[in-house]
């Protein structure tokens, strides 16, 4: 015997040793390190998709819904169900064919943007994601699809949130609108579902409150990056139960009162202009409107380039929020500031100036609106009658710097800091500014112009609302805001109180009451109703509360382009003001005739009006003048 038993035994030992080595290697892989391999498997076979949370609503101060989301029916194509062997173009063609057939069957147009190239790119880059084919289907179409969906495997319906603004145009410039965007943490995942992202207005400013917390959906993908087909999925047991549900965004309650907003907008409906209604006690914006406006529902889910072009076309520039991003010469509404500055500089309430109808300074001749002049006139009366020569003289008397610093003190020339984007600062001109801008020195005439709110001075309607509320509340400058504080939270403190003596402000307030009661702005307080039969006396309605105001008519341009921007600032009730308002109408007649009735309408809505019997005819001349 050549082959010994020992050889056989040692061969057996080799076999056993070999199996022992294999067993230990397998023990290491499957028992010791199994967690690592499971993690590797998870990592390579899992795609994380960021899922946006439901966007929060926007409410007015009374809980009226201004912006919300509604479900919209969509149809998607699960590309993995159309995988074909061989070249990728086979799969692309299969998807395209199937979509064409489905479109025919349910009477929809083939989505134009779904080119072969796009399908191919989708399959290459995002094969784990479905292709969204149609969005926001009407119920009838959707029902047709639901009925026949069995015939079209690979297509699925799903519901998407769509932004909707129930009041249409109302408060459009405050709300803004949303577009499509990436969720904030989209980069931490493989894919994301598009989220709504505020593009303007508070939708944009408070986007981070409104967007929810994005969740994460995990899908399993095969080696080619596709989700398992329905058939394959049925063969698999474990699901990835580690999805993170998204949570909805916060509801945003605004200080806006939808009713006041509606009245304000209706008063601006036929003109180009803007208006701001503010609470002078804390700066809360009750209404803010810009006309002409737009319907934000036309701008979601994303604004098309045609819509965008239409809405930004001059001169209407519907997307522009004139209340904060357009600046105008304030005209006579600036006079209260000049007046306060002069009183602080030592001008006495009883000091008089003789208005002769024209103010001459060097070769500058500045006409008062009353050609024949107001005669000797004190400050309070000059405010009431809005005498230009008086204030030109006043400005010259107290000096350029006093006027400029008063304008700045009241917040002009700087952004108010409202919680909206796109605010402009306006211009409070001074020597350096003029040099830098026009390369000219400051002339005394510039001081005159500025004292009556003309020339280079530019303000936004919102700034004038802040001025009105400062005059209302005795000199406190507030930051206007739209985001309503929670109940029980203290009202915001003023940014500062203007550095002028209280009695100076009080005198000007009185002058402004005169304006509203019997001066250029008497239509703020009073509304005359034309009699129907023509014979009877005109009926007269007063606000139920006292009020004060100032009109303004700023002339701009010369010759053919000469036009008037007409203003009113006002506040009410006089004794304890709760409302301050500023309104501008471009190309108006005069502040007293064009804007004051509109302001009256807003105040009448808020405070009510009452018919009064006292018969006083309105002076036509006074009405048209400032």
């Amino acid at each position: 015997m050549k082959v010994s038993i020992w050889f056989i035994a040692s061969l057996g030992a080799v076999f056993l040793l070999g199996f022992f080595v294999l067993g230990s290697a397998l023990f290491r892989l499957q028992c010791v390190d199994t967690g690592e391999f499971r993690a590797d498997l998870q990592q390579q076979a899992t795609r994380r998709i960021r899922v946006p949370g439901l966007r929060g609503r926007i409410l007015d101060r009374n809980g009226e819904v201004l912006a919300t989301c509604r479900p919209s029916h969509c149809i998607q194509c699960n590309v993995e169900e159309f995988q074909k062997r061989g070249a990728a173009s086979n799969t692309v063609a299969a998807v395209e064919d199937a979509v064409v057939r489905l479109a025919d069957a349910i009477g929809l147009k083939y989505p134009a943007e779904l080119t072969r190239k796009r399908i191919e790119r989708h399959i290459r880059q995002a094969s784990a994601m479905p292709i969204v084919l149609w969005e926001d289907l009407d119920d009838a179409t959707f029902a047709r699809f639901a009925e026949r969906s069995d015939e079209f495997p690979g297509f699925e319906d799903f519901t998407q949130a769509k932004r909707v603004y129930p009041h249409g145009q109302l408060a459009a410039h405050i709300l803004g609108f949303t577009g499509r965007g990436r969720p904030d943490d989209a980069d931490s995942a493989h894919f994301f579902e598009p989220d709504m992202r505020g593009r303007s207005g508070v939708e944009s400013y408070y986007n981070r409150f409104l967007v929810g917390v994005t969740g994460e959906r995990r899908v399993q993908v095969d080696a080619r990056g596709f989700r398992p087909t329905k058939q394959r999925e049925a063969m698999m047991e474990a699901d990835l139960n580690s999805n993170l549900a998204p949570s909805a965004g916060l509801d945003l309650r605004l200080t806006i009162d939808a009713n006041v907003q509606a009245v304000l907008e209706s008063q601006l409906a036929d003109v180009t202009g803007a208006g701001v209604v503010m609470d002078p006690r804390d700066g809360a914006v009750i209404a803010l409107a810009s006309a002409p406006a737009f319907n934000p529902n036309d701008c979601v889910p994303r604004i098309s380039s045609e819509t965008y072009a239409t809405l930004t076309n001059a001169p209407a520039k519907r997307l522009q929020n004139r209340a904060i991003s357009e600046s105008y010469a304030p005209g006579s509404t600036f006079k209260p500031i000049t007046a306060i500055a002069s009183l602080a500089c030592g001008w006495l309430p009883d000091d008089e100036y003789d208005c002769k109808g024209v103010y001459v300074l060097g070769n500058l001749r500045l006409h008062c609106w009353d050609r024949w002049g107001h005669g000797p006139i004190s400050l309070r009366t000059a405010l009431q009658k809005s005498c230009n020569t008086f204030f030109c003289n006043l400005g010259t008397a107290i000096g350029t710097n006093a006027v400029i610093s008063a304008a700045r003190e009241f917040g002009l020339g700087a952004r108010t800091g409202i919680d909206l984007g796109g605010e402009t600062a306006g211009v409070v001109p001074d020597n350096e500014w003029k040099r830098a801008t026009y390369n000219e020195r400051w002339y005394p005439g510039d001081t005159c112009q500025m004292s009556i709110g003309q020339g280079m001075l530019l303000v936004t309607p919102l700034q004038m609302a802040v001025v009105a509320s400062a005059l209302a509340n005795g000199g406190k400058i507030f930051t206007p805001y739209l985001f309503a504080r929670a109940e029980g939270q203290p009202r915001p403190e003023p940014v500062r109180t203007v550095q002028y003596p209280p009695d100076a402000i009080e005198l000007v307030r009185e002058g402004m009451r005169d304006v509203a009661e019997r001066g250029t702005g008497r239509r703020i307080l009073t509304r005359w109703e034309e009699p129907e039969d023509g014979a009877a006396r005109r009926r007269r309605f007063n606000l139920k509360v006292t009020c004060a105001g100032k009109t303004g008519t700023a002339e701009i341009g010369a010759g053919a382009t000469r036009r008037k921007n007409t203003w009113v600032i006002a506040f009410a009730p006089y004794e304890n003001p709760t409302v301050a308002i500023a309104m501008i109408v471009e190309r108006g007649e005069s502040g007293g005739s064009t804007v004051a009735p509109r302001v009256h309408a807003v105040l009448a809505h808020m405070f009510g009006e009452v018919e009064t019997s006292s018969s006083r005819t309105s002076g036509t001349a006074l009405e048209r003048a400032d």
Partner: protein
Amino acid sequence: MNAMLSKLRRMDWIMFACMIALIVIGVVFINSAGSVRPVEALRNLWRVHANTAAVGLVVYMAFAFLDYRKLIDWAALPVFAVSCVMLVAVLFVGTNRFGGRRWLWFFQPSEVAKLAVILFAVHVFAAAGRSGFRWFLAGVAIMGGPALLVLAEPDLGTAIVLVPSVLVILLAARVWTKGIVIMLAAIMIVAGTFLWTVDHAERQTDPDRREQIYKYVPLRSHQIQRLRVFLFPDADRSGAGYSIRQVRISIGSGGKWGKGLKKGEQKLLGYLPPAVSMNDFIFAVLAEEWGFMGVLSMLALFLGILVPGLRIAAQCNDDRGRLVVIGILTLVFCHTYVNVAMSVGLVPITGIPLPFISAGRTFLIVLMAALGIVQSVAVHRDGPEPEDGDTAT
């Protein structure tokens, strides 16, 4: 009839049962691996495996009842000659599949050659006095000739398992122990040099220098790549190292108890390369779905063939019997070991099937024939020499 019954009684039934169990496992996992394939023929491959096993069973019984001594004395030379002719023929008229010319009509001559070479080696070296340097050279020629032909297909795996089976026979027959030890040492040195060279080349930062080194290595580029992947499994996860990484993830993620039959995610999601999951990497499917316990059971079943096999060899009083059993068991062991070891990353990847389990008709029939011969040794170990005629009881 009586003779038949007594032969049946002398068969090793544990070994038989383990073989059947492994074939059943094979059918189950070929079915499992095929179930994710879109091609109908591949989904039904398990039926082919089962049918082949049925044919194989007839072959098995035939070889078990046929006296192995007759087989070795009379048939070994013609079988060896025919299979060498076929190995040559396949290089010219064979069907090219999976990157190699390995098929002659419906079967792979290289698989037949495995058994033919063993039988012929036993035929040559069982006789007395066949030792010394010359006979050693003859032994090298017996295994080297077919091995080179197989390598030319190319089929490195078969060439690799041919060598140890014959070497064990040479060693057991004490042909020239010194030479075999030297040869083993030489093989190890060559293999070590290859590994060291690849390792050295891969550590070069200059790619030109790397290319220069590889120019002197007498290996094909895909073989170099396999060595590279073996040495640096994590270096090229999405390229050359993809398969082995996915195989390891499949095995590792199976855990202790596995994910359940047909529920392997790696397989279902197509990460485990589907082209090889039914043949060379079917072990990964088994390990993923049945886990460590399943794997241990499988290894136990293989031991259930190897250990009774060795006992049959030990109980046999005839060198031919001992040698043929040792050669066949070594063949089975090498296949199993290399297949599992490459799956877990202990050896570089070589295309080599897992006995009884991997899909492959020729190999299954050859294996069953081989185990039939082992049974024949068990059945005929005490019987008289066949020269006495076929009347023995």
